[in-house]
């Protein structure tokens, strides 16, 4: 078994309204920043032990499917790296 860190990024599907991101963008613009668009996402960093990177990714994907993401509104991606020692 090897220690991995799986990073699960959950973001709204393209086209789904994100009022919090819009509000954040407006606040940045009020501070004088120039920007075209702003998107927000949730990132989960999961430390786990697995036989190999594929097994770690598979488990993290199942976590995203069953809890971390809501398939109605979210897309997600999983990246796996050897845990920092």
């Amino acid at each position: 078994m090897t220690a991995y860190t799986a990073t699960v990024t959950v973001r709204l599907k393209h086209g789904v309204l994100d009022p919090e991101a819009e509000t954040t963008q407006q606040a940045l613009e009020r501070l004088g920043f120039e920007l075209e668009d702003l998107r927000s996402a949730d990132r989960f960093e999961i430390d786990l032990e697995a036989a190999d990177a594929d097994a770690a990714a598979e488990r993290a994907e199942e976590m995203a499917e069953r809890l971390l993401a809501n398939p109605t509104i979210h897309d997600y991606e999983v990246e796996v790296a050897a845990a920092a020692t």
Partner: protein
Amino acid sequence: MTVAVLRFGGSNCDRDALAALEHLGVDAEIVWHEDGLPEGTEGIVVPGGFSYGDYLRAGAMAARSPVMAEVRAAADEGVPVLGVCNGAQIGAESGLVPGAFTTNRSARFQCEHVHLRVENADTPFTRAFGEGEVISLPIAHGEGRFEITDDALAALEADDRVLFRYCDADGTVTDAANPNGSKGNVAGVLGERGTVAVLMPHPERATLPDVAGPNGAGTDGTGVLAAFSQ
């Protein structure tokens, strides 16, 4: 009929629901989620509140608690289930109904009275009304915007599973009357069985005469909760 009003950590409309049901003469009790559904449960209310602090997404944690598996099994057997506000979010997260309730278009918590058009009067929750009738109920939510794919919404509409839509006082469904940006102005939907319903507005806050008042909530919630008083 013995109705179980579920209580999770962070539920806060459980006692309101109990009081409203008792006012209608319904035998109801509050059930702590870890205790599971009592034997002989003949109706289930998943009440409003902020279960688990709305962590991750409103309703996400409670939806995955063991008692919700019991609720889904009971719903499959035809036990009437009503999810209100956070209960609607839990219902959507747990798959009792399709779609999701997410952040209001305004990005704000909204607490106000709304008008609703009864889209389907042939359900236990709307039998007291006529199709197209306009009723008034209060809302109080920050994450009540109904999101669903266009195809899935079309399928819901084809199956007559939209229960209520936000509308103006005349019953016209307009964008201005949509308090939270819900797709299709949808305020409440039915599950696969017509005995399962979730809605963001609060019928239990518009049932007791003491809070109805001339400027109050009215008593239209009575008709929704009448599903449990047969």
